[in-house]
């Protein structure tokens, strides 16, 4: 056991160097004022106050959350029936379908988005709809695969039992399949919602430059304004939201399993 633990040292070092250390730097920047010396720090919470007390910034936060939320809901609405359909196919076909689903994931996300830009350019649709088309397209496979895994490992005997007890197909689905596939939906949400909140390339490219999202804000304050303290504070708020929603979905997940 101990020797196995040793094998993880490179990984721990990696995490410490490239994940934990930068996060601590962000934390340090976020709670200090600019003009830090090497030894002296001016600790302050005003970076957070500045963000939270300003309606314009809260509006940006809300737009980011709204886009992520709608994307997630649409992904479930399309993804669930698709996953159900795939799960009911013969085993060999299922593998093929899943392979087909994952194929586009091998292509760089930027390339796919530029392709969509070219396609959607010719249509007169609201730019917001274009953003959702791009977002759902990009994230849908994650949702389908998660739900499919949950449904596929479901014990078929349970359905047979439900039919024996007089349930029709609809009732069997509602009482058996759906509740048992909730963990799949939840891990699907984690995989779609979290990256969607912080995504800003797709809205930027497909939204025709009409969206300022939280990712854009962070970029601006770091690279253009050179205000690393405020930029870090926004990043940290963002991180907190993500950790918070992970905690919530986790809770939902365990809650569902206990039922």
């Amino acid at each position, binding site marked *: 056991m101990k020797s196995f633990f040793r094998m993880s040292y490179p990984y721990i070092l990696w995490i410490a160097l490239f994940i934990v250390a930068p996060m601590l730097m962000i934390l340090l920047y976020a709670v200090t004022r600019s003009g830090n010396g090497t030894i002296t720090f001016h600790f302050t919470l005003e970076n957070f106050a500045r963000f939270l007390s300003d309606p*314009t*910034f809260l*509006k*940006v936060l809300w737009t980011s959350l709204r886009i992520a939320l709608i994307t997630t809901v649409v992904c479930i609405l399309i993804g669930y029936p698709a996953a159900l359909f795939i799960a009911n196919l013969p085993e060999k076909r299922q593998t093929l379908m899943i392979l087909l689903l994952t194929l586009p994931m091998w292509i760089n996300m930027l390339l796919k988005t530029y392709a969509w830009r070219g396609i959607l*350019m010719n249509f007169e649709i609201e730019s917001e709809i274009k953003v959702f088309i791009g977002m759902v397209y990009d994230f849908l496979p994650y949702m389908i695969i998660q739900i499919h895994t949950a449904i596929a490992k479901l014990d078929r005997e349970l359905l047979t039992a439900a039919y024996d007890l007089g349930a029709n197909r609809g009732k069997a689905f509602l009482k058996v399949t759906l509740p048992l596939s909730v963990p799949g939906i939840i891990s699907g949400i984690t995989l779609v919602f979290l990256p969607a909140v912080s995504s800003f390339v797709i809205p930027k*490219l497909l939204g*025709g*430059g*009409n969206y*300022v999202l939280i990712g854009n*804000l962070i970029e*601006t*304050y770091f*690279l*253009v*304004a*050179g*205000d690393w303290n405020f930029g870090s504070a926004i990043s940290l708020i963002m991180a907190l939201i993500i950790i918070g929603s992970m905690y919530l979905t986790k809770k939902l997940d365990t809650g569902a399993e206990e039922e």
Partner: protein
Amino acid sequence: MKKILICLALCLCLLPLGATAEFDAASFAGATLNVYNWGEYVDMSVIRAFEKEYNVKVNYKTFGSNEELYIQTKAEESWDVMVPSDYMIERLIKEGKLQPIDKKIVDNLDQLAEGVRNLGFDPDNTYSVPYFWQTVGIVYDTTEIPREEMEAQGWEAFRNPAYAGHAYMYDSSRDAFMVAEKALGYSANTTDEAEIEAANAWLQDMHRNLKPSYVTDEVIDSMAEGLKWMALVYSGDAAYILSENEDMAYCTPYQGTNVAVDAMVIPANAKNPELANVFIRYMLGYEASLANSTEVGYASANAQALAELSGPGGEYEGNEAYLPRMGYEKDEVFVDLPAEWQSRQPDLWERIKIQ
């Protein structure tokens, strides 16, 4: 006597040779030169030719904004040649981050075009040698907006509700404020509180009336395809758009605009300053300038290349965007804003866009 005369004649013949730059080309063999330039800003065959001629390796990397470059100057990595813009060069000089150009090596400064001589940020080229230069203006579709209509409005076109939803605005706080300040008759380098307030209100008007799409480099292809009626662009990009789409025209607003100059500099911590000077001399030369400007479409800093490309039979003959407006008194080069404004302008700009 005759011998002396022959000697003199020989000396005279050698004079042009003697006057050439003082360096030993052979001494660079195997060296590596780190060059940091804007994206899509060079004809790579020029770089390859330089490598071949001096038997060196050029490590060529690109950046997207002056601010990105500025962060690099704080980093450990050292560059031999960088190509920042006017106001950033001013800041780097102020902070002592540049070393003087060796004019014994860069002996061809007399080839600089008139428009890039005696520039405010470095009047006698102590630290910088211009590379490309340009104005900021409006590319517009003449089938949608007649020429006279655009010329008469200048920057005010960006507040004209008649073009709502048909415009691109370049997503850069410094350029956006320049537009507003020039439209209002102020200096593009103002730090006057009341003038900034007025410019901010002007831009809020723009956001409400014009509903522009905020874009960066994607504006080039989009305008070449004619997706919208008008866009704020740099003249170098405009030259490309005009050559791709004949309906497009370029307006340098009568209210005055920003003349932007990107110049080659040598950071104080350069590892190979001598070779850097040789490189700068090479890039300013006629042949390299001609090739680069032909490829990229930005106005060359080399007078001869500039005249040839914009003149009869040149690559950009009749392209009104290629040759920047010269000697117009309302045109200005950016100066480095005080630190407070460097962070406040982007902040105001984000708020305008979020509204």
